């Protein structure tokens, strides 16, 4: 998802001064991109909503530190990605299901109408995070590794295995 939202400088200045109306305007401008980012990586909608809330609390608390370097969305997105990855790390059990499921295992056969979105949703949260940040948001493997506290090779292998699995699910769906 590409976010090309231009935010007037005056709105940022007002938000930095603590103007509640300006802060709400920022929330309204970025709530969907932030939620979408979190929701694509997390399985549960309510977790993504929590990330949305945590992200904007951080935005409100830190907006004075935003000096206008780069697009505001880049700054907010980094906060949102960090909060999402923290949640994934916190819930590693839920996030690190095996990538390579055995044939015949429940949940493997996803039906003939599976599309890419469904296949993507069947990945683990860690894999979804790597795929989304790399392929959609344009993060480098170095950036992902840094944010996840993992190695670059971990990020690369997660991406390759996730694509292999999506390809397999789509292939099986098409031939079911």
């Amino acid at each position, binding site marked *: 998802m590409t976010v090309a939202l231009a935010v007037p400088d005056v709105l940022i200045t007002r938000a930095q001064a603590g103007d509640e109306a300006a*802060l709400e305007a920022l929330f309204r401008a970025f709530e969907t991109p932030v939620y979408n980012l979190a929701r*694509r990586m997390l399985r549960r909608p309510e977790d993504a909503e929590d990330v949305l809330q945590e992200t*904007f609390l951080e935005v409100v608390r830190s907006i004075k530190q935003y000096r206008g370097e780069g697009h505001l969305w880049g700054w907010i997105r980094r906060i949102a990605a960090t909060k999402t990855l923290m949640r994934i790390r916190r819930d590693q059990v839920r996030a690190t299901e095996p990538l390579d499921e055995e044939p015949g295992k429940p949940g493997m056969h996803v039906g003939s109408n599976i599309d*890419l979105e469904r296949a993507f949703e069947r990945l683990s949260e860690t894999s979804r995070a790597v795929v989304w940040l790399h392929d959609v948001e344009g993060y480098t493997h170095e950036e992902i590794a840094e944010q996840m506290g993992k190695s670059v090779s971990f990020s690369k292998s997660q991406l390759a295995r996730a694509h292999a699995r999506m390809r397999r699910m789509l292939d099986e769906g098409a031939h079911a």
Partner: protein
Amino acid sequence: MMHCTMDDLGALRAGEASVWARQHITTCAACQSELEALYQRVAQLRALPALGPARDRWPAVRAVVRAERARRRRRWSAWGGSLAAAAALAGLLLVQPSGGKGGALHAELSQAKQQSATLEDSLQRYDLDGRVLSGHAAARLADLEDRISVIDGNLARSDSRAPNAELVKLWQERVGLMRELVNARATRARYVGL
């Protein structure tokens, strides 16, 4: 015949593939098709519709922000009050000068502290819930509070047992800023009907 793995395809996409993979992809139709499918998957992921939250989370964010602001204001007021009380106590412990320049300084200092304490009390009456009328008003209030905080920091570092011109000046500046802050808050309160 050996084909590209998904790692190879990813590396080809990133322009980081091995010599073997770069050569192989030019002659293998199956791997070319796999690479094309990879590009298509990425394009489709990028084209997925944006998902929006089912519930409005702004009221929850606003409630936390307001609670934090109220806590900060209470802390700040308590700090200001403690500072005034401590200064007043220190003043009492001083040997009262009989007159001259020292006496004048002492009188000015006592007056500034008294005015400051009175203004602190006044401020409590206009302690609103965080609403502001405009960015200008919000910026002005934040600026005044920041400047008062700086002065409080300087006062905390200064030696209040020895009244001097610099100390008197700091307290008088504090009174001036406090007066502006009270006026700004009073004006804002009138506008929002409180």
